């Protein structure tokens, strides 16, 4: 055996420092992480859900039978409901990823998941956001005929400001996320491919 082989055979004899955490600490951390993740998930859905509920209550309270009103409010509610549904579905897909499967399969499934997230951040967000804005625009003639001129102008101006701010922040966030996702997908795909070569 040469020196290199000796060195390799000594690998398992290297001194291992005592663990920074004991098993109880680890279980506590795991439990905390599960709870935090659940809370975060519930919070996201709650925010969207409450907005959705407010819109539904608003629609009921006005008692308006106008088809334009139903179309507008329906579009806004559908956009939010769609978003909630997709976020819930996405988190279910994440839970289904099995970190205990072999590396090749795990990497493929993970890349698939990130590609799906890319679609959600990209075209899906644009579609749901557009639906929401379209719903608001459809409601404008009703606001105009039922509200004072001043309040209508206020709704238009504040609506535009909120819309522009939202587009700016959502776009910025999405771009950052897409850059990260693209980098991750490229890295993980190349690792997965290298196992097969």
């Amino acid at each position, binding site marked *: 055996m040469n020196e*290199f082989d*000796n*060195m*390799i055979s*000594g*690998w*398992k*004899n*290297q*001194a*291992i*420092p005592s*663990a*920074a*955490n*004991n*098993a*109880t600490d*680890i*279980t506590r*951390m*795991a439990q905390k*992480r*599960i709870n935090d993740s659940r809370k975060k998930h519930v919070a996201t859905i709650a925010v969207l859900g409450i907005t959705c509920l407010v819109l539904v209550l608003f629609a009921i309270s006005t008692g308006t039978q106008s088809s334009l009103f139903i179309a507008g409010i329906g579009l806004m509610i559908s956009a939010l409901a769609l978003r909630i549904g997709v976020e819930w579905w996405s988190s279910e897909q994440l839970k289904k990823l*099995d*970190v*205990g*499967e*072999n*590396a*090749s*399969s*795990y*990497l493929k499934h*993970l890349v698939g998941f*990130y590609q799906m997230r890319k679609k959600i951040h990209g075209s899906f967000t644009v579609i749901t956001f557009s639906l929401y804005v379209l719903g608001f625009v459809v409601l404008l003639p009703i606001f105009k005929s039922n509200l004072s001129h001043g309040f209508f102008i206020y709704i238009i101006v504040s609506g535009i400001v909120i819309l522009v701010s939202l587009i700016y922040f959502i776009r910025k966030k999405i771009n950052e996320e897409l850059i*990260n996702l693209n*980098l*991750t997908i490229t*890295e*993980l795909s190349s*690792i997965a491919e*290298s*196992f*097969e070569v």
Partner: protein
Amino acid sequence: MEQDIFQTIYAQYYPVVYRLCLGYFKGDSGLADDMVQEVFIRVWEKYNYFKGESQVNTWIYRIAVNCCLTEIRRKKSYETRVLRYQEPETDSAEKQQNDQKTLHQCIAQLNEPDRVLTMLILEDLSHQDIARILGITEVNVRVKVHRVKEKLHRIYQDMEVESL
């Protein structure tokens, strides 16, 4: 998962997972500690889904390998943190420490898939076990093991020449 089962698993597999993470993270004990913690959190979380289709040690190796390989996403500072080889902090005898240091330096020059494979080789796992962990054929494992050993040996020889 029952606490006593987890305690047994933790005590038994901590050294193995630590060595694997330390090698993968180029001797950076801080990153290795973080990753070991992550691996065992996953073990605890997923134990109830463990179907027993593979042995527990294969399952734990798979989790450790998958966590290491996907670290890129979790820690964005990954590249800057492990860009350079870091000397392992061990209290072992000097000769052994030097050997480990040299070996870590050699491993640090490999890419991620080769580092993972090297860790599994150094743990004396059979080709069959490595194939089960990585999800590739045994023939493929044999070829890769041969290649990575050659690479390591070449790196080692280059280092020897440089140190003269």
